[in-house]
């Protein structure tokens, strides 16, 4: 049962997704009592938001690798848990060759098990944080209010883990979607949707969400035109180069001035198309059957048409494809990355005069918000909004990286007596055991690599 009344806590997490579970499990692992951490959000499950997106996307396996899991420490990894749970060593061999990706059911099963075992929901206050007030005297802390300005708690340290901004559409599609005549024929990859057999669809973008949509549409017997804005997306299995997941890369990244970091992020976030065995075979089949084509260009006009939509595509890389009659358009263009699209941050920027550059709050190298964050009372940000500091901030590994350091800061500020090694080992093994039981009953998904 979630909390029924506001309370004071050492750590507050604004948001109830994966990031909140990372902060919570790390805090308990290091020695904070569960009731010293309060989660703020309305979801009963930390997987709620992700589960909906994964379902809408038709996602079956994650792009993350074996280490991207929800246990506080890095052992056992997902591949080891899968191998143990299903008595199948092939997961280990895949992991050794870096060809293992955890299945969505495994991720959901593990996160749910960790949440249940550690009492995440028992320490959740079911309200959205709408406003945070900084108080410096006599003890630095934060006062939290909901969207209706009701008091919902106080905390010494705050982690803002509010997730992505709203879904992003190219301007022409965004405008057309406002028109009721087109609204239901234009969708984002992360929105619920259904493809019709024999339908003709344009999928905008070259990232993993778009590739998923190609496969989903081809599977039901539809035709797909993949509309790419860039001529040559990088072929790379993870959006962020591997060494940027660890200190070697993060040190180098953080040593750059903000403009350089934004430029680098612009290059790695532009969309990549990883080659996956299952996707390639489905797309090749679609090409053989004349149901898949790729076009370089951008949609610049939309009208009603006999198939539902008539769209005009112009291209600066060759002859314009011109007008096409299509059933629908799907934008795999991700999320709006501006912090200002999130009301809580916008209010903080307005009130505290926080520095903003290119839609992002200029954060400190410890993911702190200048002006609000102090060593004795931290205010930290995680997720995509923190990737100017930690380039993979929006991945499970990145959330874990930030959560660990934030909790370690809080532990130092509070003079926490850390949990002993034997106790940590016992906790980790108990969690691994619970996860293994959950994974055993989860559906097995085909590996794509």
């Amino acid at each position, binding site marked *: 049962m979630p909390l029924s009344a506001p309370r004071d806590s050492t750590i507050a997490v604004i948001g109830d997704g994966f990031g909140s579970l990372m902060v919570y499990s790390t805090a308990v692992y290091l020695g904070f009592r569960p009731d010293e951490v309060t989660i703020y959000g309305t979801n009963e499950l930390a997987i709620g938001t992700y589960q909906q997106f994964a379902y809408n996307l038709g996602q079956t396996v994650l792009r993350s690798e074996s280490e991207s899991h929800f246990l506080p420490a890095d052992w056992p990894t997902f591949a080891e848990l899968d191998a143990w749970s299903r008595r199948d060593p092939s997961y280990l061999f895949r992991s050794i*060759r870096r060809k293992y990706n955890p299945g969505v059911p495994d991720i959901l099963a593990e996160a749910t098990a960790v949440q249940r075992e550690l009492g995440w929901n028992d320490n959740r206050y079911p309200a959205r944080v709408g406003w945070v007030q900084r108080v410096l005297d006599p003890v630095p802390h934060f006062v939290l209010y909901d969207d209706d300005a009701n008091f919902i708690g106080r905390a010494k340290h705050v982690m803002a883990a509010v997730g992505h901004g709203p879904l992003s559409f190219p301007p022409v599609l965004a405008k057309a979607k406002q028109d009721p005549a087109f609204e239901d024929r234009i969708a984002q990859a992360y929105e619920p949707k259904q493809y019709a057999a024999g339908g003709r669809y344009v999928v905008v973008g070259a990232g993993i969400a778009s590739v998923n949509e190609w496969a989903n549409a081809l599977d039901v017997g539809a035709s797909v035109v993949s509309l790419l804005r860039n001529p040559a997306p990088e072929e790379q299995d993870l959006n962020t180069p591997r060494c940027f997941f660890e200190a070697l890369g993060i040190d180098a990244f953080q040593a750059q001035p903000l403009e350089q970091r934004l430029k680098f992020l612009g290059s790695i976030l532009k969309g990549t198309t990883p080659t996956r065995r299952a996707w390639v075979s489905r797309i090749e089949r679609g090409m053989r059957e004349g149901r898949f084509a790729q076009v370089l260009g951008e949609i610049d006009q939309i009208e009603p048409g006999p198939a539902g939509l008539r769209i005009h595509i112009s291209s600066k890389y060759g002859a314009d494809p011109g007008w096409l009659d299509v059933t629908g358009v799907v934008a795999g263009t991700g999320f709006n990355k501006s912090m200002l699209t999130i009301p809580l941050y916008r209010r903080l920027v307005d009130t505290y005069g926080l520095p903003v550059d290119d839609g992002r709050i200029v954060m400190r190298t410890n993911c702190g918000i200048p002006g609000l964050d102090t060593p004795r009372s931290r205010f930290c940000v995680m997720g995509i909004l923190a990737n100017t500091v930690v380039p993979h901030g929006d991945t499970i590994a990145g959330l874990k990286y930030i959560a660990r350091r934030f909790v370690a800061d809080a532990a130092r500020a509070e003079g926490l007596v850390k949990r002993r090694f034997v106790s940590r080992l016992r906790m980790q093994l108990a969690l691994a055991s619970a996860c293994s039981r959950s994974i055993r009953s989860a559906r097995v998904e085909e590996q794509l690599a």
Partner: protein
Amino acid sequence: MCATALGRIHTRVAVLVGPALLATVLSILTGNPGWIVTIGIYLLMGTVLDIAFYPLVIKWQPPWLTFVLGVGEFVILYVLVKSLAPGSEQPGFGPWAPVVLYWISWAIAVSTRIVLFPLLSLSWIENGGEFRTVDWSILPEAEPLPLLAAVPADQAEQPLVRQLSSSGNVPPEARPPLSGVFNRP
């Protein structure tokens, strides 16, 4: 893992603690120092490779490479042990002893690295194999800042800019050109 050179050395020393203890016990039991000396040679050889070779050729180390490196290190260590012949003058360290010791040590080292280190240090993997405090890479106090934090909005109105402005009434006095004060030899 993208190990740093320091991380490789931290890890190398830490993973050989278990094998060193095992070799010490074996040396005491057999009365032959060859066991512990072999681990010492292994440590020195590994440290040299960690400093002078691996950082040059390996940036990101996939898991399968661990076994390949293990085989390579075995060959080098075997040659070194045969050349230096530790403990060969006494019984209790036969020709197969270094081979068996190496592979048992390697198995202990790999298990330690996979299981124990992530539990001992939450950030060991993230820190490229270094045993650091769980902390940020660059503390805010050490953040590189531009020399000029911000240009004022009314930059054209700054006193020096106004003073240097060509629109002033008093023409400036000419001074020698920048390189004119030095005579070429």
